[in-house]
């Protein structure tokens, strides 16, 4: 089993994802350069956070044209699991793998602090290790995380259970103060229709060890690995 972490010029959480996968989760991971045209037989793909191409023009808007993205789109279409974190979420939206867009934070400032998330759907391949309603704590660090979509898209996301994480307070309530960036419906993470592509603004890879202050992000990676183990062809 192998998970590819894509490095775009300007990615800066690629190493953190790689270390979380290899050192903490204990799964094989490798970097794929944005100019690569192969995913190298990866079983899952992570688009990490950062500022791909400096986020010039608009976050994620240039990265989607990287050669590797063609393969990522194909991989996702074939049902391969793809996780986009922060800038990776922005790239997934720009690439059309997820609906909607991420606008400037409502307060117009970069927001870097821990947030609480409520698991809205624990029946996805990324969240099976959590309980529905469970409250997680992990950092956010972004300037453009204000999720926006038209009313119809939002109601479909709600109806399909594709809103996976919502910003809440420590008690699990969606109060206005708990929403750090103005996201519609308090959205912190969403799934595509078939359920194999997850985009989220918070950083689960920064919450995988006690020494970092939280291990609540670990479940996303372990759920993914469990899913891959269960679906992997038996070794011949």
């Amino acid at each position, binding site marked *: 089993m192998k998970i590819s972490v894509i490095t775009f*010029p*300007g990615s*800066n*959480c690629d*190493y*953190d994802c790689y*270390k*979380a996968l290899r050192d903490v989760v204990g799964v094989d991971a490798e970097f794929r350069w944005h100019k690569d045209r192969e995913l190298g037989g990866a079983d899952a793909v992570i688009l990490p*956070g*950062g*500022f791909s*191409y*400096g*986020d*010039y023009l608009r976050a994620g808007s240039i990265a989607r044209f990287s050669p590797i993205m063609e393969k990522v789109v194909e991989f996702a279409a074939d049902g391969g699991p793809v996780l986009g974190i922060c800038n990776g979420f922005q790239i997934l939206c720009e690439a059309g793998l997820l609906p909607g867009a991420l606008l400037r934070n409502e*307060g117009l*400032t*970069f*927001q*870097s*602090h821990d947030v609480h998330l409520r698991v809205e759907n624990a029946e996805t391949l990324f969240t099976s290790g959590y309980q529905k309603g469970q409250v997680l704590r992990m*950092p956010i*660090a972004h*300037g453009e995380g204000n999720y926006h979509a038209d009313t119809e898209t939002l109601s479909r996301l709600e109806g399909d259970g594709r809103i996976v994480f919502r910003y809440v*307070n*420590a*008690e699990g309530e969606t*109060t206005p*103060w*708990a929403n750090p960036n103005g996201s519609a419906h308090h959205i912190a993470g969403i799934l595509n229709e078939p359920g194999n592509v997850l985009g989220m603004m918070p*950083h689960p*890879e*920064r919450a*995988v*060890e006690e*020494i*970092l202050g939280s291990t609540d992000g670990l479940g996303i990676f372990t759920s993914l690995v469990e899913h891959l183990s269960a679906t992997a062809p038996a070794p011949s």
Partner: protein
Amino acid sequence: MRHQERSGAEGAGPATGTETGRGEAPEPRPGDPEITPEVVDEHGLSPDEYDRVVEILGRTPTFTELGVFSAMWSEHCGYKNSKRLLRLLPTEAPWVIQGPGENAGVIDIGEGLALAFKIESHNHPSAVEPYQGAATGVGGILRDVFTMGARPVAVLNSLRFGDLDSGRVRYLFAGVVKGIGDYGNCVGIPNIGGEVHFDRGYEGNPLVNAMCLGLMKREDLIRGEAEGVGNVLMAVGARTGRDGIHGATFASEELSEDSEASRPQVQVGDPFTEKLLLEASLELIRSGHIVGIQDMGAAGLTSSASEMAGRSGSGVELDTARVPVREPGMTPYEILLSESQERMLVVAKKGREPQVREILERWELEAKAIGAVTDDGAFRVLEEGRVVADIPALPLTEGCPTYEREGVESPEVIGLRETDLTPYVDKETDLEEAFLELLSSPNIGSKRWIYEQYDTTVRTQTVVRPGGSAGVIRVRGTRKGIAATTDCNGRYTYLSPRRGAMIAVAEAARNLVCVGALPTAVTNNLNFGNPLKPEIYFQLREAVLGMAEACRLFETPVTGGNVSLYNETNGKAVYPTPVVGMVGVLEDIHRVTTHHFQEEGDVIVLLGGETHGALGGSEWLYVRHGQVAGDPPEVDLLEERRLQHGVLALIERGIVRSALDCSEGGLACALATAAVGEGEAPLGVDAEVEGKAGPVGLLFGEDQGRVLVSCRPGDEGELHRMAKNHGIAARRLGTVGGPRGMFTVRAGTAATADSIRVPVDEVAQVFFDAIPHRMKVVEASRPSSAST
């Protein structure tokens, strides 16, 4: 045509080290201004200094050469008024691998690892263009660290602004914070702390000092040297434009109303290119294809090329026509003095240029051969083969005249220091009101408004984020941690420069031991006014002496830093601000200790000196009476050292559950800071402060050498026993109360003692709203506690 005689990897030119211009006197370029006394004066050189230039060259300089000398002999590059004083600082210890003189200091932290670190100012640019000024300050300090071969792992900032009731100050403050954030966030280097002070003494001239830490394997250390005749000089990274020309000279002048016109001298940053340059540089250094690398920072190509030549004792020759430029028609003068950002000068091994280019191309950057290393000790510049500058490198880089000035203490400051504070103390009638006003001061209150704009957790190594005593990161693959802090109280240094500087060092060390780190080394940033004024030179000398004494006693050598003089606006100098950036090592990261109280029922103890009620230069005096006066707190360096060892021992034994340096705002504010923590679960406090001082002094006095700790009730006996063994006093102040409890502090012993009694939720609200309230965004700020 001379250039036809040359040959090289890229065709004609000095790229292969064929010395083409040797022995030819440079001729003035057509269109260059004539060298007149006025032109010399505009370049910031005194008549004596100009005579020295003529003596070194043995002839009149060309306009290009004058520009080169002007930059290299500016205060910023040449340290002409500080060099003699800087020699007084201790710089050596067995763990120091690289002391002052390189891009950054480097210390050995064991297990084959080394830590590179440095602080640098960007005060003048930030005063006229806060966003770009601060952003490029971060960019510059990152490059200083990664050119040593170290990967930047953390940044800190030391900032000074005027009072936030001024709209101009709010503009500068918001711009600087955004500039620092946008740059560091994009490159992906976590911000782990620092400090900020607001005082009218910095009204027109903010201070923006940025510090960076980088980690490397010892063997990856590389120095900025141009060695090996025939090795190739390559310009790497961004192209050279007309921005920042003479930035170094600009930084060596006082600010005035006309400084706004200097805005074009402020460089523009591109953090995305910086990130690529960082990765490419580290790859280059590990590739073995290069022998030296240096940032084209202050004074750009001039300083990087001549310093690399000067350090190694060889010479360099380069052709400005080969330098990749952003626009046509740039003169050698402009190309040599441009401070365009995100550029490096690399010395590639002869014949390895293609490999260097290949690495740079992978990171979508340019690398172009512009010259070569020679053996004649000259810094020689050609323009399409014609010599335009030919200067002996060593006298250029090391021969800058240095001065010892006259220093006389200002009578005004003496008067302020000798002010009797009794009338002010007598006027204080409401301790609770004073307490809340202090907490709402941006100097005491939470700095969350700032550090929430900085990515603090990228790289997944931050163990203590900003807001505590010191920032802490873990060192992957070891049990170790690195802690860092910046400190300086400008009011103390203003009132008593020597003592103020000692306090800055002592406070930095206290902050490090409070997280469990052994203070190890220092980088300093000396921010002062115009050294030609006797009262300013006095401050500079005294501060250096104080810093030297404290650093020597604490065994924390100064491995480098920065001097920023002429911090004056319309003739008024900032407070002398010798910022101490100190790093420390934790042997066991799992022993790390934070500043806030942990649990209801824990015992609160004050370790160290007695509270005499030192109110000179205090925040209380500024907030309640608008005064900066009195004698700053006494500091006993030997007592401080005992305290440091005692606190470290208690943390190593796991006795202490929280530790916080007790400084600005006194014990009352320290107790409040420890009680509210990060605002999620403020804990009540029930404490009693005893001592000979009156209630104001007991609660708000800023006596040095005190650390506020807490421990489990069962550990109190052991704590007292260990403190006694270390020769430090330990006084029980009270106990930690319950969540959302009452914050009660009594001053004095009697039952009728004056007291502060406020619900801790209110304490937290005031503390966290301090800056948002002044930035008029209180309605948009998050509530302080978990009841969101």
